[in-house]
């Protein structure tokens, strides 16, 4: 091979490899939507379906009881008080229940928060339907404000039989002020 032919083929190969490199850089970002789709299909990250189901469409399973546990946590600055009105509940699939979370803003500033829910085990996430939840929208708290916030939910009758206990956790985050204030 002559010298310049060698250089030419070196350059072509290097460009191809640089192309692979760029593609892999893109792939790293493509993993984000892939991951999201994967989790949505499988419900693996416990994000749940959050779809509004019609209460009339389901019949109650009288023979089955499931324990639902409620957890709370805060990722906010300041010692926020944030807890469920009861820590566990025995429920029947197909019946509508409600629980409420109490939160108090300890700071002397108005704060907008967002509650993010997580359901464990992840495989149960697809069987919890929420009709109403404070996690659906951001919540604005006046200084020192204290408030009860409701969740109305139902466990689907199709819940796999091996699942006897489900926990639902809410964590409060700063809303990042990315959206307009709630209600507007």
């Amino acid at each position, binding site marked *: 091979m002559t010298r310049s032919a060698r250089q030419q083929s070196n350059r072509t190969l290097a460009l191809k490899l640089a192309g692979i490199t760029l593609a892999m850089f893109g792939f790293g970002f493509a993993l984000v939507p892939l*991951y999201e789709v994967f989790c949505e299909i499988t419900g693996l990250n416990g994000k749940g379906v959050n779809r509004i189901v019609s209460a009339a469409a389901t019949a109650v399973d009288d023979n089955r009881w499931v324990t639902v546990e409620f957890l709370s946590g805060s*990722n906010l600055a300041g010692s926020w008080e944030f807890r469920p009105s009861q820590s566990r509940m025995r429920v029947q699939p197909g019946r509508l229940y409600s629980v409420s979370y109490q939160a108090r803003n300890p700071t002397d500033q108005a704060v907008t928060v967002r509650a993010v829910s997580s359901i464990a085990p992840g495989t149960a996430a697809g069987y919890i339907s929420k009709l109403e939840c404070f996690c659906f929208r951001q919540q604005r708290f006046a200084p020192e404000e204290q408030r009860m916030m409701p969740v109305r939910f139902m466990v689907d009758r199709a819940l796999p039989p091996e699942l006897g206990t489900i926990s639902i956790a809410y964590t409060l985050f700063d809303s990042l002020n990315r959206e307009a204030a709630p209600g507007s």
Partner: protein
Amino acid sequence: MTESVHAHADEKPPGLWRWVVTTNHKDIGTLYLLFALLMFFIGGSMSMVIRTELFQPGLQFTDPLFFNQMTTMHALVMIFGAVMPAFVGLANWQIPLMIGAPDMAFPRMNNWSFWILPFAFSMLLSTLFMPGGAPAGGWTMYPPLVLMTGDAFPYLIFSIHLMGLSSLMGAINIIVTILNMRTPEMNLMKMPLFVWTWLVTAFLLIAAMPVLAGVVTMLLTDRYFGSSFFNAAGGGDPVMFQHIFWFFGHPEVYIMILPAFGVVSTIIPTFARKPLFGYASMVYATASIAFLSFIVWAHHMFTVGMPLAAELFFMYSTMLIAVPTGVKIFNWVSTMWRGSMTFETPMLWAISFVVLFTIGGFSGLMLAITPADFQYQDTYFVVAHFHYVLVTGSVFGIFGAVYYWLPKWTGNMYNERLGKIHFWCSIVFSNLLYFPQHFLGLAGMPRRVPDYAIQFTDWNQVSSIGGIGFGLTQLIFVYIVFQAIRSGSKAPARVWDGAIGLEWSVPSPAPYHTFQEPPKLTEGELQREGI
């Protein structure tokens, strides 16, 4: 000789400037190796801080924040500053010599890939003096913790970008050199194994490093530009960081071990005076390890709450890697079997590699058992595992390579007696250092803590004594290397009588320019096939 080749064999700019502008693969190899040595000592002194603090329970010398800066920086410096550049240095020196090429394919890019590194590491190390200190959230940079890093944060991200850029340019250069610049008679299955393992490693690099660059970029935008890749409040997920990071991270550990496999596969046949057993199976094993390394990443995340099916998948795929790895170990042992072995320093490192790397592989297998890992995760057992594979594996491989080729590089024999002392002290101290960490981990001592419960004291003291001893021992190595550069008995062209390979057909020290004309492969150079 063709017209464009400079016939002046030793034409170099004068003084230190030569090293800045050099495009010669041997110069650049030397620069990489010296840089790696420097980083080995900087990272090493950080580990000395860690081991001194852990000599006793309670806080003696450091506050917890500084301690965590030390563990984080130690890992980053050792991985990206010491082990990876050392292997790239070996590649620069040896690949053109082993395949009969005059230089790397892109000499000028080669110069850049090296000279980026001092900038990257000055940036990273300067964070030690910044408000808020150096990064302290662990080398794995998990959010949200890493987002709480002080002023150091953007420096951390950009220095990783630079290191990534450097290794990517290096990798592309290496692939093109290997695929396009071999001497005509050398087809792929006649390449020395060191060249093969580097070819595979370079592909791992271009597949894995960009993903790291991407994920740290996401960290950067999460912190400064309001994105929410990993922020649950904005719909992101911090666990996703772990998936993307380890998608890079596991191939990365193989990036650090495959070239060492190549080194050991070169050294053992020389001193056993037998061709490598199962050359072809070695090549296939390397390739399958590389492939499998992309589908095992979540074994680092068994405890994040994955569904059963995923836990099982990652457990079995991880265990599957033990098969090609086992093939390699079997082949090395078979190469030694009934060989006329002698035990010069390079051979000692190679044999100890085979034994101690296998111990690290076994603890890896234990960690791969999902239910067991629930107990071991984040304990000193993991620390013991990866130091067996990385220190007594990769680093010992590098030592072996340096002793093996140093006479070719400098033209002088190193001091064999001191080499043996360096080896034996390293063996004793490294095992004192790391073996007790298995016990500590099994007993429940967490990793990355400056203080511990008193029942862990005894083994921590043994480990610290081993650590300080191991650190001091490395000073012998520096002495040996510089002595061999300056003096010592003259080395012949074929330094080791059992050695095969084109690099031994040029004089020692290797002239500044070699193989301006593609060399012919002789009988000896072809003896790679197994018996």
